[in-house]
């Protein structure tokens, strides 16, 4: 990158207060994460085959980001497919369900209904991984991080690669935080 490019990006904020060009839309970034997660997860034979299907709860808020992310990528080149999910029953045919909510009760519904099913539950509910989701997004200083509840994934019959475990923060389900490493 040329030396002046980052500067221009920073000051583009000042030139036109409505543009923050060097930053990324949160929903697009999470869409990309969801797609990439699939590479690091192995599903049991009982899971559906074919393109990775990701069910998104409250899909409407993600629709624009998903469209932008896959615009210009031919369907056969897309590594995953994002579809709306309106109820826990809808999620059963998915590889990944993204419980996009802040409401813990909604997450609890999905977790109860999907118990034992080979579905990777991802959420961004506060403390979602400790509540039983396999992966939980959180934001630190404007960057997206994720916590992994390995036990929850194993109970669903999924195995998470060590590389993903290294990149995320491994937490245990239950009542207290994992002790600092």
């Amino acid at each position, binding site marked *: 990158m040329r030396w*002046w490019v*980052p*500067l*221009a990006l*920073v*000051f583009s*904020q*000042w*030139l*036109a*207060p*409505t*543009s*923050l*060009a*060097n*930053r*990324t*839309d*949160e*929903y*697009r*970034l999470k*869409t*990309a994460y969801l797609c*990439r997660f699939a590479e*690091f997860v192995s599903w049991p034979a009982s899971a559906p085959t074919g393109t990775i299907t990701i069910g998104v709860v409250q899909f409407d808020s993600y629709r624009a980001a998903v469209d932008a*992310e896959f615009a*210009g*990528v031919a369907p056969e080149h897309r590594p*995953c497919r994002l579809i709306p999910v309106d109820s826990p029953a809808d999620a059963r045919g998915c590889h990944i369900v993204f419980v996009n909510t*802040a*409401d*813990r*009760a909604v997450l609890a519904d999905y977790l109860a209904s999907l118990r034992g099913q080979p579905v990777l539950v991802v959420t961004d509910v*506060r*403390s*979602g*991984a*400790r*509540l039983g989701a396999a992966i*939980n997004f959180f*934001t*630190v*200083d*404007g*960057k*997206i*991080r*994720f916590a992994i509840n390995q036990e929850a994934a194993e109970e669903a019959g999924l195995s998470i690669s060590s590389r*993903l475990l290294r*990149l995320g*923060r491994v*937490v245990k389900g239950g*009542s*207290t*935080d*994992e002790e*600092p*490493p």
Partner: protein
Amino acid sequence: MHRKRIVGIGLLVAGWMSTAGAEEPAAPLHQSTLEELMRMEITTPSKRPEELLNTPAAAYVITGEDIRRSGVTSIPDALRMAPGVTVSRIDVSRWAVSMRGFHGQYAKHLLVMIDGRSVYTPLFSGVTWDMQDVMLEDIDRIEVVRGPGASTWGANAVNGVINIITKSAKETQGGVVTAGGGTIEEAFGGARYGGAINENTFYRVYVKAFERGGFVDQNGNDTDATWESVRGGFRLDGEPTAWDTWSLQGDVYNSEPEIAARPANAPPGSDAIQLQEADNIGASLVGSWNHIFTDTSTLRLRSYYDYIDRDVSPSFKEQRDTFDFDAQHEFALTDNQQFVYGAGYRFARENNESGRFVTFNPEDRDLHLYSLFVQDNISLLDDRLTLTVGSKFEHHEFTGWETQPDARAVYKLTENQSVWASVARAVRIPTRVEYEGSYLLDIDVENGKPVFLTIVGDDDQVSEELIAYETGYRAIPLETLTLELALFYYDYDKLVSAEPGQDRVNPATGQIVRPLVASNKNEGESYGGEVSANWIATDWLSFQTAYSLAQLDLRNTDGGRDTVALLNEGKTPEHQVSLRSMFQVTRTVEFDLWVRYIDDLSALDVPSYWTADARVGWMARKDLELAVVGQNLIDDRHSEFKAAFFNGIEPEVERSVYAKATWFF
């Protein structure tokens, strides 16, 4: 008060300001590796309005953009934007800044921090605004929390807390050069450059200087007092891993404000002016490290060193070294409880020199402050109700252990409305001069002779106490409209009083000195509230409005005979109004207007006033911004505050104008 909650408001507001037109990267993100995704920064976390609705306190965030668009040139002037804050310019280099009452140059109930470094002066209380400053372009936001913050921040955060937070070095890459001048802002300039040391470590360096002047006395004659200041500094920010961030920043400065006063021997009615120049030097170094254990567990460490050398001879000299260390760990206690605890230690060494108007006994002092802090945040009723209970426990040199608890609750009525309520205790530690010193408060004339009213410290002094009851309502009826209402009732006890003693004659000068012994024989209440609304009408037009009310009721107790401290009742404006608009006229032209009303200060004979600031900004080229700012445009001049130390001169603020060029490279 939970620190990260307040941040949420700023992000939310900033988010609205910047939703339109965010450009998307060309390449699909899902073709990047996870490691690459983890390095990407998001626009502003699209926080659901919950963040704002979950704040159990009256909080306001002044953003860097607010500061730029308002045309202010100093931190205290920027604080006029926040509801509940009263700011008066006393003269070219001095301001009175307070929150919800007890207004004055040494507003004793307000804690102010710059990047976690306390700038509250334990000598007199308040902030020496003629020393503390930053490069305004590098301010990320100013968080203004009304109400006690003592359970988190400790003593002296009685009426409120102000956190000035600068951008990380990563956010200030590249160069900025500013230059300009005008009538009060006679000449100013600044330069900052930021770069990357490697892909995870960033730096910036800056230098800034100005000369201000242009104040007049009550007859409209120029006081000739000027204020020269120069400062420079750096900041380093690093992210060695995805889970660790650190920063190190430092500043050095020299500030030389002049005070214009009537000479002591001037005959009544004289126009004579004597200028006294203060020579202030300071430096600071602040380091911090944050480590993230999990999504719910974080460790924060911060330490700073601060040096002050304030020479206001012949009045007094102050020299202080402060070392501070603070650690805080936050973790999830249960599914519904987020627990925070911390500990801190502060050491201050003072080597002061008594002078004509201020004395210290002893002059040299070592002060140790130990503190512990706990806070529990409990979510109930499916997160609709959040309770926060916490306390600070501090050991202070003068007053021993102090316990400052608070309890807060916020309840979400609907998806876009919430109510909150709190009760909190906070204390204010006696200042050095109130405890073991003296200072000249005022000069009265009795029977044609001057009487020097002198506050005399007393080591029987205890802390002033406040129990504060607050409640508030918030609504976000539209994505672009926020409405807030906050109400407070403060119950003060053991307020500092000035008990008159026997007049005596200073043998050296023959002057009559009336000692007023610092005691704790006042009590009282204050009440009031603030209403504010922020409305982003369109992409190119937004409005920020606030109304503030504060009423103070003080009285003697325990047989006290104080009369001077009771005057605080009449030093705080009852009503204040602030109306701002930001108008993007064309793609390159901005027009910003700010109208304020401040009620009278009856005890000081300062009348109420309306005033207005206006700014026209033009992006002349992609890398050059030109702006013309007019300040205090309505009247030729007006008085905002009066202070005794000018000895008869009452500086007034004149209408002023300045032009500024900002070049980015």
